[in-house]
């Protein structure tokens, strides 16, 4: 037996291969509905639980499930802990959900972990904040075109509001192509659930239990899952709980859905890059400006990774995602160590033993399935550089799926994104997501003979809303609707 195999055997619990019961899984887990260009998110408050449960019972049959690409429209539904409570889930059942989910995104402690301070503090949020109405239910609506979406939304909102639910907000999205508002290709790097048979390099194949309750995760364990007493599931809708014959599994085939409305100040981002790269005569230097902006992001506007092409954008590398940082660029001379994509997904670059398979494996415990979409009209670079816009004009409705909010979403946020000492940096913040906490004041570009640190980087992304939701499996939805 090779030494590496032996090590693997000693180190990693062996994983039983698990077939995913896809027809019980809301389709959003399996796909991002790329062909459905229109999307809107309906936030609802439960005002009367009995009609609200009937509304849900009627909705269940329309919820999009599985791996097949939906035609026309798609519908998914998720709930906050308060929402489940209002629908009749008891406290002892809620206690089986992740503590972060039950506590909610806006507690003082979670706010510290997520860097939601200053202008990004929950007290200033447009939705989900402590002063606003309770956000109980999230209905995610998709359609092929904007026109079809309008009809889909109108129908769903009128059905909901006629049946024990009140509309808190309707969050629109904008089809701006493959990019995000700063002007960079987005959503390239996604984990692939092991066992789903999608082609991908080993770097991105992750145990299904990282994204679905009821399956082995990266540690070879089924993630903690909420259960109900078997006696409360008289219709026997739910599968039996793994370790307890008297309980049934409410979590299986469900997952947590993290949603954050992230306002993007495109002008502030580009004006900073422009000011830092002006020529000696004071004129703008477009190439240098783009180069610095790309260094902050970690990819060029086309999506090409700096790690593979440090000096110029090469669109032919746009979807290139099979590379390590340590193997090509341990020091950060190509892609700075603090670049946004290197912080949020450090690949092979962190301990233990950077560059090793073990480093990659450990990193797989901190991945997210991203399903968000941009909102607000795009702005071209010329306008962004000259005109200052007030208020929340555009941004990203960030949506991420994971089974362990603490180890995945919050860990990435706190230990990597918001950490001023990430990977040995001195006092930097994430060039896109940082800047609200007062910690970390710069962005370092590693180079010879000595690094250049850009100081007083502006806050360019501001959280404007957010909540932790649970995206149940189909059988659990039926159970929640009262059978």
């Amino acid at each position: 037996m090779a030494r590496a195999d032996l090590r693997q055997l000693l180190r990693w619990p062996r994983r039983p291969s698990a077939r995913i019961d896809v027809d019980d899984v809301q389709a959003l887990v399996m796909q991002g509905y790329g062909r459905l260009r229109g999307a809107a998110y309906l936030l609802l408050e439960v005002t009367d639980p009995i009609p609200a449960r009937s509304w849900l019972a009627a909705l269940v049959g329309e919820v999009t499930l599985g791996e097949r690409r939906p035609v026309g429209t798609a519908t998914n539904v998720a709930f906050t802990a308060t929402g489940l409570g209002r629908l009749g889930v008891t406290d002892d059942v809620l206690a089986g959900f992740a503590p972060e989910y039950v506590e909610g995104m806006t507690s003082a402690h979670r706010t510290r972990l997520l860097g939601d301070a200053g202008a990004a503090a929950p007290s200033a949020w447009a939705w989900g904040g402590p002063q606003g109405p309770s956000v109980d239910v999230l209905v995610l609506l998709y359609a092929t075109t904007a026109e079809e979406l309008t009809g889909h939304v109108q129908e769903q909102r009128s059905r909901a509001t006629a049946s024990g639910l009140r509309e808190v907000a309707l969050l629109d999205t904008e089809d701006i192509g493959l990019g995000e508002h700063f002007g960079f290709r987005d959503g390239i790097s996604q984990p692939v659930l092991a066992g789903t048979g999608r082609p991908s390099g080993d770097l991105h194949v992750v145990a299904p239990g990282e994204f679905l309750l009821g399956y082995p995760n990266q540690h070879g364990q089924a993630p903690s899952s909420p259960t109900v007493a078997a006696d409360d599931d008289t219709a026997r809708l739910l599968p039996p709980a793994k370790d307890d014959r008297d309980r049934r599994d409410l979590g299986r085939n469900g997952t947590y859905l993290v949603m954050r409305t992230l306002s993007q100040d495109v002008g502030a981002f580009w004006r900073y890059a422009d000011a830092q790269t002006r020529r000696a005569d004071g004129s703008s230097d477009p190439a240098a400006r783009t180069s610095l902006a790309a260094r902050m992001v970690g990819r060029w506007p086309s999506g090409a990774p700096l790690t593979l092409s440090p000096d110029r954008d090469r669109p032919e590398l746009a979807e290139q995602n099979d590379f390590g940082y340590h193997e090509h660029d341990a020091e950060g001379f190509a892609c700075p160590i603090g670049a946004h994509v290197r912080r949020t997904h450090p690949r092979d670059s962190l301990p233990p033993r950077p560059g090793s398979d073990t480093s990659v494996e450990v990193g797989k415990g901190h991945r997210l399935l991203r399903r968000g979409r941009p909102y607000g009209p795009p702005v071209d670079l010329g306008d962004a550089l000259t005109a200052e816009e007030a208020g929340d004009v555009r941004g990203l409705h960030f949506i991420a799926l994971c089974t362990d909010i603490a180890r995945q979403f919050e860990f990435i946020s706190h230990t990597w994104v918001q950490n001023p000492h990430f990977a040995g940096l001195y006092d930097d913040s994430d060039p896109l997501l940082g800047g609200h906490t007062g910690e970390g004041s710069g962005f370092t570009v590693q180079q010879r003979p000595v690094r250049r640190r850009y100081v007083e980087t502006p806050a360019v992304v501001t959280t404007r809303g957010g909540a932790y939701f649970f995206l149940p499996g189909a059988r659990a939805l039926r159970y929640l609707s009262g059978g």
Partner: protein
Amino acid sequence: MSHQVGLTFTAAVAPGREESLRAMLRHLDLDPAHNDVLPFAELPDVHFARFLVLPEGTAGFGATTLVLTVDADGPAGPRVRDLAEEVGAGIDAVFGHCAGYPADPTSRQRRSWLAAHQENSEVFYIHAVGRTLTQILDEARLRSAVVGFVDAEHARLAALDDRGVRDAIRAFVSETPGLAPALEPPAAPGLLFRVREKSHKLAVPALLVVGLPIVVPALLLWAVAFRVRELREPVPLQVLDPDRLRALSDREDFEVMNQFTSIAPIRPGPLLRITSQLTLWIGNYTARHVFTRGSLSGLTTVHFARFKRFGPRRHLLFTSYYDGSLESYNNDFVDQVAWVLNVVFGQQEGYPRTRWMVLDGARDERGFKAFIRGHQIETQVWYTAYPDLAAVTLDQNARLRAGLGDDLDGEELRAWLELI
């Protein structure tokens, strides 16, 4: 310059005084460094300190118990004297709630009372043995100044070669008032300490070799007995009270670093008592002689950590100061150094099942995280002399300073420049 000491002062709270004590500690907690009762920042050699109030019955104590831990540059005698003299009024105000504390003590009485209530820890891990608070603060100042210098002069420095940049930095340091001492290496711990540690380092293996005929069969017997116990013993998953969990986490993640305290019983029976004694010896030896230079088997986020057998029922008191969140601390344990945790925590109640002592155990992520939170207790007050400095930053600062004095070339010089 000196080595580090971990002091623990324990005293029973006088009947009826607990509420008043807790109120006072809440007051200290508002500003541990500079409060008007016991301002820890006035103790010049103290890295970390904490107060714990243990309810009656904890670890078998017959009364509510007050604990003060101090992690400081040694030796111990002068540190006890500092407590008695530099913050004597504060010591009176807090320990005045304890049974038998002298009324209106003189400084000498205070010292002897503290000394009489002081015990050492069995295992004392120090991120970098010998690195004093003075050195840490000096080097942090140096780093900050050099970073500022390179920020401001980048355009000029970028045109130089490696050697030129280094010479410019050296010139800046030697010309800046207050920084010049950094050109000299930091003082090493005292000769006596070094001789003592060296002798211990050699004596323990020597004794083991001498004792081989007894040690080997004893270890074999122990290993078989321990393995049988591992296989047979049921391990219930700990159920956590969400309110308690929330009370603990509400006090975390304000600074770069956090603190952690747990108290847990050893599982019953002589076998685990013996095992625990054995692992404390191993822990003591490795903390003193193996993991002494900035890495706990690859882990670089722990500043100080201690194990101590504690109370009439000999529970294990664990205290540590670490960088990042408890989530990341636990993930490092699960993913990287599970075997270390298995050895030192493995005999405690509720620890996930191990295999041959070092395998499995903390690799059970759910069980391990529940175990850690399960035995964690609230720390009423804690103080750090450098809340903004991560342990890795301390190491970089020390390398920056060391490299200023050394004659570096080629790759070494480049690595040094990358520190900035």
